[in-house]
């Protein structure tokens, strides 16, 4: 505890005299994110949705395209309770479309299940979690099929993912990248389709107990 506190204080001090108590930084580079967790002396764990806790929420697709849904309102694993976007929209897991950077087909087969939100109309896909233990960082890889999502109201396909993340239920969402809505740093998938998954992460030195990643079209 002393080591971690000292590391946090050192990190805060390194940001200069104008730094207030809380420091919140978003990341789109997993290496930099993990390096910062290490520099802060924080222990970290991985959740890849492969464990037995997730076996009850496997949604599969047969060769005709029919989906066999297995969903739940919430799943708890490793101290985090994951939820869908709302009480009406449960979560599930389904095989990812694209390989992660550096992943081969065997690696994909061993780690293919990704978290999905089975959303109802007008709801955004969102990936929420709560933890009794204070968290200081959360980050993961996000993937889309085509980079586009069908919009009922405009009856057209629109870019599927300008990513935001909010902590502790705050209405103030944290952004990724300083550019406008088309800043590629903010998008799960570039406008051009078939690109690999992208990493989005956040560190809050004050700690948090809930998070909500939500891409907005």
């Amino acid at each position, binding site marked *: 505890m002393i080591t971690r506190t000292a590391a946090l204080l050192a990190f805060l001090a390194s940001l200069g005299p104008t730094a207030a108590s809380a420091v919140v930084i978003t990341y789109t580079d997993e290496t930099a994110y993990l390096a910062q967790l290490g520099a802060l002396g924080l222990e970290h764990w991985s959740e890849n949705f492969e464990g037995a806790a997730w076996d009850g929420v496997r949604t599969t697709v047969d060769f005709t395209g029919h989906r066999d849904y297995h969903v739940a309102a919430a799943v708890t694993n490793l101290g985090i309770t994951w939820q869908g976007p709302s009480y009406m929209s449960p979560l599930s897991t389904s095989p990812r479309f694209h390989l992660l950077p550096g992943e081969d087909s065997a690696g994909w087969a061993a780690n293919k*299940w990704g978290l999905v939100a089975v959303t109802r109309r007008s709801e955004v896909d969102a990936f929420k979690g709560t933890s009794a233990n204070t968290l200081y960082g959360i980050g993961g890889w996000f993937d889309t099929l085509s980079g586009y999502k069908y919009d009922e109201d405009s009856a057209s396909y629109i870019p599927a993912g300008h990513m935001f993340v909010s902590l502790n239920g705050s209405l103030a969402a944290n952004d990724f990248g300083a550019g406008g809505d088309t800043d590629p740093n903010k998008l799960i998938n570039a406008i051009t389709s078939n690109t690999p998954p992208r990493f989005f992460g956040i560190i809050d030195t004050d700690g948090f107990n809930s998070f909500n990643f939500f891409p907005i079209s």
Partner: protein
Amino acid sequence: MTETGGFPGETSEPGFYAPIVYADNFTFAAAQAVSEPGPVPATVPEPSTWASMATGLVLLLGMRRNRRTKLPADGVQAKVELVPQGQ
């Protein structure tokens, strides 16, 4: 309005969008230790089974011990033959 899936040309289950965004390989940092999933326990006999095995072993050893020190039946004197030395 008919609700359609998120994938081009796909119709999802009534009332649901097919998933369009996937998330995987999260890494999170916590202040306290998070309970790791414990190792799958090896198949070991239940305590009652251990007790049964121990009881069986005791009985088995007891039988062997009894066989070594088997006494003649009541009323029958053990016949002891002395063989003179030197013969």
